[in-house]
């Protein structure tokens, strides 16, 4: 039986803590297997990864705390992590910390350990990477290390399963009889004397002060409060602070120096150099892969492969899903032909909505397969190293490369991939500009309009140029947007960009599989629900109001049309057009037409844009219906192109010309007509604020650019 503290009668919580890259996630996977859930800490973007393990019949919750270098948090993410450890915010204060310590990087790991000891929590140590250490010709004396740290130390090599059973039983016994380790890092005498003086002054006044807190009050800047003490104690504190720091105010230097001196001593005493080894294989590989020419070539090749995989290789799978849902629609359509409203709800609402969710799975799974692979081998960090300068100047960093590149295929996996960025501020900036990258759903719009208005007039060469240029519009706009976001909108400071290039290693397929599985599931569960709900709403707006009387009216209008007009479209397509025009969405399109006239769009184009809110490519079938051609048109359709050419404003001017064709393309390049993107931003930022911001700023930009281009067209021609 575990001794259960009074304050909690629920499941005990064990938290895995440690430096980034210490092997925490791998150990977490070994401990919890697939029993894990990935969510967010309430109200923040920081990911909460937790799972359960069964220890001798007792269920224990295991939380993987994001990697930290120090308990002194710099970024918002780090504050969340330290708050979870220290105060048990966002849930329960952990009952036990398992400190994951990288044996091959002992000094820095010991530094953080010495800080964590001051949190006053029971803690045991799992020491990883002992195999790496041996490759460097060194050997760790576990017993000596345990002696220095004053707690249990268990060596583990997670992916080989070595030591995991021992760690489990160490966790079980530490929960039964907790040990709070404490180490004396040996602060300089001037500091310990000052701590003594302050505590003595407090004792005289009858209050006992925590020595750690007093030391922080003496060294930190700004100093934390030592609590409610009489003014005389504060006077002594201030005196001693001045005495130590003088005018230099280098309190944190003193603190870091003392801890690192201790860490270096422990490391030297616990690690034995067995034999000298030359350059490691990792170094040899890196000579090539971070080389100024070959490194960049290799990088481009890898990125090309990743991009092609989501842009092209996902295609057959997506076609398969499309085909499957198409067949399902046909079947349901036939089954429900007796009840038109139900038929439309099931076919155009429910099945279309589910299809709109599932269609993203291939791209998400393929992208996360590659990210897990690149991360697992150690190449992801190299990619960030190579690209940092390129992205850094506008406020992003090297890690943003993959999310942004992926967004050229689809913003949904791209936004999810922004999780590779540990810093909340740069991650949010990346998420907010990712939808500006020209994704594959914009392509049909470009193909339709370039094919209809650019190619016939200016030839194939200019059509190619236009298509190419459209892919740069979003990128070009993204740069100033990031600039503004970083300067004015996003609060908090960014972490300084630090990165470790881990040793190259074979990917662990179990970790890769788990990553793909959990990302896919997470998308379906959270973003998927929102996408589905929005699909139903859009369907209702396009379907209602609908009545038999109205249909009869449309039919009689059709009969009374002149013969040559009736030849241009079938009765069914005409009715569909009328129904769309009179639907809530169609009425809305007519109501807001005046706002879009400056951009060169009449109510028909406007309604097409509005109907494309679920996804940009939906504008094609929407325009098909609006121009009485039915919804079965595609971007290559000659009929739709002809219809756009023939369409006129009420005063007889042609509706479209190359200028407002470009203005419409630019509108689609910059707008955020994609509910999957918005749902994913909601999921990733854990709230509606940022999806609303993204939608608003992108729509505003799209509108302004569209109006400007149309105006320019009016001036020039």
């Amino acid at each position: 039986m575990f001794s259960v503290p009074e304050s909690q009668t629920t499941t005990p919580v064990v938290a895995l803590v440690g430096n980034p890259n210490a092997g925490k996630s791998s150990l977490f996977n070994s401990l919890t297997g697939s029993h894990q859930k990935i969510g967010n800490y309430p109200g923040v973007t920081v990911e909460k990864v937790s799972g359960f393990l069964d220890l001798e019949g007792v269920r224990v919750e295991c939380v993987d705390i994001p990697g930290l270098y120090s308990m002194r948090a710099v970024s918002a993410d780090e504050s969340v992590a330290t708050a979870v450890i220290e105060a048990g915010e966002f849930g329960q204060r952990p009952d036990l910390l398992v400190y994951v310590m990288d044996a091959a990087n002992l000094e820095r790991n010991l530094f953080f350990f010495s800080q964590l000891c001051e949190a006053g929590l029971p803690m045991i140590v799992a020491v990883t990477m002992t195999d790496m250490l041996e490759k460097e010709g060194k050997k760790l004396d576990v017993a000596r290390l345990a002696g220095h740290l004053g707690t249990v130390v268990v060596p583990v090599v997670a992916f080989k399963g070595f030591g995991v059973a021992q760690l489990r039983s160490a966790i079980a016994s530490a929960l039964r009889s907790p040990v709070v380790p404490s180490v004396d890092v040996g602060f300089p005498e001037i500091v310990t004397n000052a701590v003594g003086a302050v505590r003595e002054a407090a004792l005289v006044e009858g209050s006992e002060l925590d020595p750690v807190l007093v030391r922080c009050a003496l060294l930190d800047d700004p100093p934390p409060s030592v609590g409610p003490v009489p003014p005389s104690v504060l006077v002594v504190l201030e005196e001693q602070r001045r005495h130590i720091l003088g005018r230099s105010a280098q309190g944190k230097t003193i603190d870091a120096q003392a801890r690192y001196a201790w860490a270096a001593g422990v490391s030297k005493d616990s690690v034995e150099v067995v034999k000298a080894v030359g350059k490691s294989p990792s170094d040899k590989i890196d000579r090539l892969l971070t080389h100024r020419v070959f490194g960049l070539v290799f990088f481009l090749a890898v990125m090309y492969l990743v991009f092609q995989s989501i842009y092209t290789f996902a295609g057959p799978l997506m076609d398969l899903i499309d085909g499957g849902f198409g067949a399902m629609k046909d079947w349901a359509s036939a089954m429900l032909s007796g009840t038109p409203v139900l038929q439309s709800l099931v076919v155009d609402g429910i099945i279309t909505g589910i299809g709109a969710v599932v269609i993203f799975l291939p791209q998400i799974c393929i992208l996360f397969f590659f990210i897990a692979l690149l991360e697992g081998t150690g190449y992801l960090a190299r990619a960030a190293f190579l690209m940092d300068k390129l992205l850094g100047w506008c406020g992003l960093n090297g890690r943003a490369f993959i999310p942004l590149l992926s967004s050229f295929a689809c913003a949904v996996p791209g936004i999810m991939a922004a999780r590779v960025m540990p810093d909340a501020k740069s991650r949010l900036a990346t998420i907010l500009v990712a939808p500006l990258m020209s994704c594959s759903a914009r392509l049909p719009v470009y193909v339709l309009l370039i094919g209809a208005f650019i190619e016939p007039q200016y030839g194939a060469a200019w059509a190619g140029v236009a298509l190419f240029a459209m892919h740069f519009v979003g990128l070009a706009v993204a740069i100033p947007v990031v600039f503004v976001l970083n300067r004015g909108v996003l609060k908090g400071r960014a972490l300084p960009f630090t990165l470790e290039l881990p040793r190259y290693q074979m990917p662990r397929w179990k970790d890769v599989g788990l990553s793909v599985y959990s990302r896919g599931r997470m998308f379906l569960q959270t973003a998927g629900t929102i996408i589905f709900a929005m699909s139903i709403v859009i369907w209702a707006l396009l379907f209602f109001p609908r009545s038999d009387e109205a249909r009869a009216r449309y039919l009689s209008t059709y009969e009374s049309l002149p013969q040559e007009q009736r030849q241009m479209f079938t009765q069914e397509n005409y009715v569909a057009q009328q129904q769309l025009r009179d639907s809530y969405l169609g009425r809305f399109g007519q109501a807001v037409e005046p706002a879009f006239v400056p951009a060169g769009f009449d109510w028909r184009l406007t309604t097409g844009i509005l109907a494309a809110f679920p996804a940009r490519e939906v504008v094609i079938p929407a325009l098909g219906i609006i121009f009485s051609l039915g919804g079965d048109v595609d971007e290559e359709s000659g009929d739709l192109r002809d219809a756009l050419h023939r369409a006129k404003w009420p005063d007889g001017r042609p509706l479209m010309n190359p200028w407002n064709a470009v203005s419409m393309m630019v509108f689609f390049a910059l707008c955020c007509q994609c509910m999957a993107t918005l749902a994913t931003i909601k999921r990733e930022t854990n709230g509606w604020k940022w999806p609303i911001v993204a939608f608003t700023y992108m729509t505003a930009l799209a509108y302004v650019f569209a109006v400007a281009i149309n105006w320019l067209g009016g001036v020039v021609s």
Partner: protein
Amino acid sequence: MDATFGFEKLKKGMKARVAAVLNQDPDTVRLMELGLTPGTEFTVTKIAPLGDPIEINVRGFRLCLRRRESDGLRLELVK
């Protein structure tokens, strides 16, 4: 004569020592927490193709950092 210099002067293969800490802003404190305390020696192991960031070997591990985010530290050359 002041023989100290900043991170912008570092070249691949150079060996340097942290000579002084200029301030206590979060970026600089983070570098100290990563092991770059006064007196610590390190070598420059890589420089990214575009000149920044750089990778150094300090206290037995490899750390990449940006030159301009490291200007709170002054260095001296180790012969």
